[in-house]
């Protein structure tokens, strides 16, 4: 059973968002990392880049597949996680902690209301 923390927001495309003030941290879900299999490469956006919600802004590659990561929210990239670039396996072992991808300064916080809550996301991935 995939872990779906109750304090996060989720995108249908399997990214999670943790909001703190006007800053949001983005990563991919436990369900997503399990579906990907062992992550071996992560490419993150440049700090300072302006992103619109739905933009492909990062790449995660596993032994089996290459996948784009779509930003769940709009804003400016404030910080990226150098540790996950150096050690992509963090996406598998700590998807909600050390495996985070980037922090983004929200330009339209109203977008957060369109994201899924934990129950809705759990329902989407078929969990009870």
């Amino acid at each position: 059973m995939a872990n779906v923390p109750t304090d996060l927001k989720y995108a249908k495309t399997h990214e999670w968002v943790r909001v703190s003030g006007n800053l949001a941290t983005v990563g991919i879900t436990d369900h997503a990392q399990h579906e990907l299999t062992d992550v071996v490469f992560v490419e993150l956006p440049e700090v300072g880049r302006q992103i619109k919600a739905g933009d492909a802004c990062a790449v995660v590659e596993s032994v089996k597949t290459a996948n784009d990561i779509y930003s769940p929210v709009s804003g400016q990239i404030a910080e990226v996680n150098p540790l996950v670039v150096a050690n992509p396996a963090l996406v598998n072992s700590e998807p909600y902690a050390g495996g985070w991808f980037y922090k983004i300064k929200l330009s339209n916080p109203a977008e957060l209301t369109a994201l899924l809550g934990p129950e809705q996301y759990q329902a989407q991935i078929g969990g009870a």
Partner: protein
Amino acid sequence: MERPGRGDSHRMKRTPLYAAHQKLGGKLIEFGGWEMPVQYTSITDEHLAVRKEAGLFDISHMGEVLISGPGAEAFLNGTLTNDVWKLAAGQGQYTLMCNERGGVIDDLYVYRLAAQECLLIINASRIEADVAWLEKQLAAFPRRSEVKLQNTSDATGALAVQGPRVVEFIDGCFPGPSTGGTSVARVTDLKKNQVASFSYAGDRIWIGRTGYTGEDGFEVVAPGRIIEAIWNQLLSAGQPHGLKPAGLGARDTLRTEVCYPLYGHELDENTTPIEAGMGFFVALDKGEFIGRSVLAEQKAKGPGKKLVAFKMTDRSAPPRPHYAIWSTGPGAAKVGEVVSGTQSPSLGIGIGMGYLPPEFAKPNTPVEIEIRGKRASALLVPKPIYRKPD
């Protein structure tokens, strides 16, 4: 991420171990029309278990065809590239089956179980094509009344148990002596490529010392209805020795590291064994067989393309099938295509194989792999890419 998730599951075939895979938490994917586990816990962990300890694979999706009778040898020698005459009862060999153009219909293992009985182990995705081809060749074979062809794929299950520590526990699972094939007191007395039958709870099972991982190991072929009992016995006997169930993901990374071909990647009906570097398994001196004249000419003149192995020189996203291979330096151009590529769990870097024109196909030639629009440096290396230490 776009849509991680499950494929179209309703039309896929399942092996007798489907429930066992579910119970172990295997992540199931489509492979060659079959619903198979790609991993149980982690491709990397399962891969390293096979390299250092042991791994257990379900290979029941693979096909089995029995060719028997006084004409079996002659029929197979006219249809397969390697020389079946060289096999005594209880021995096996890797071989290929080609069309008239020398293109590969399948690559397979042939075991001579007895003087007039051979077992072919064929790829899951090629069962229909192979059986149709074999039946067509048999219909045209003058001594066809002396050959019996049975496709036993549906009723037969198979397992591969691979890794350096398998010898510590396999004898305890299958008490000897053998009842057919090579005469041995116990399973671990089999030498590489030897096969023997053993009695297992009243059923006859076949065990060959071979595999698809580059490690020591065995493949077990048994009636499908008892394969789960054998699976469970091997798992419990092997777990104290580090045995892990291993999925197709690890099977693929293991075989890629040691440059074993996978049908549909390195081999297809438009690629010859000579181009694929498998000339060792083409016995041009054994007499006529399908594809021989084309293969003999290619061997003499050199093929128009060659299979190469490469290693990425820097950290990069893993190379993958269909990525372009570029030459380097002034006049750099796209010269070939990747057919297999992955991140090597043993080496921690991207590796792969691809086809190149012969003038580029030399070890230590620098090349570039085009990964998502950017070219990354790689080096052609001798096969296999991974060699066991010492």
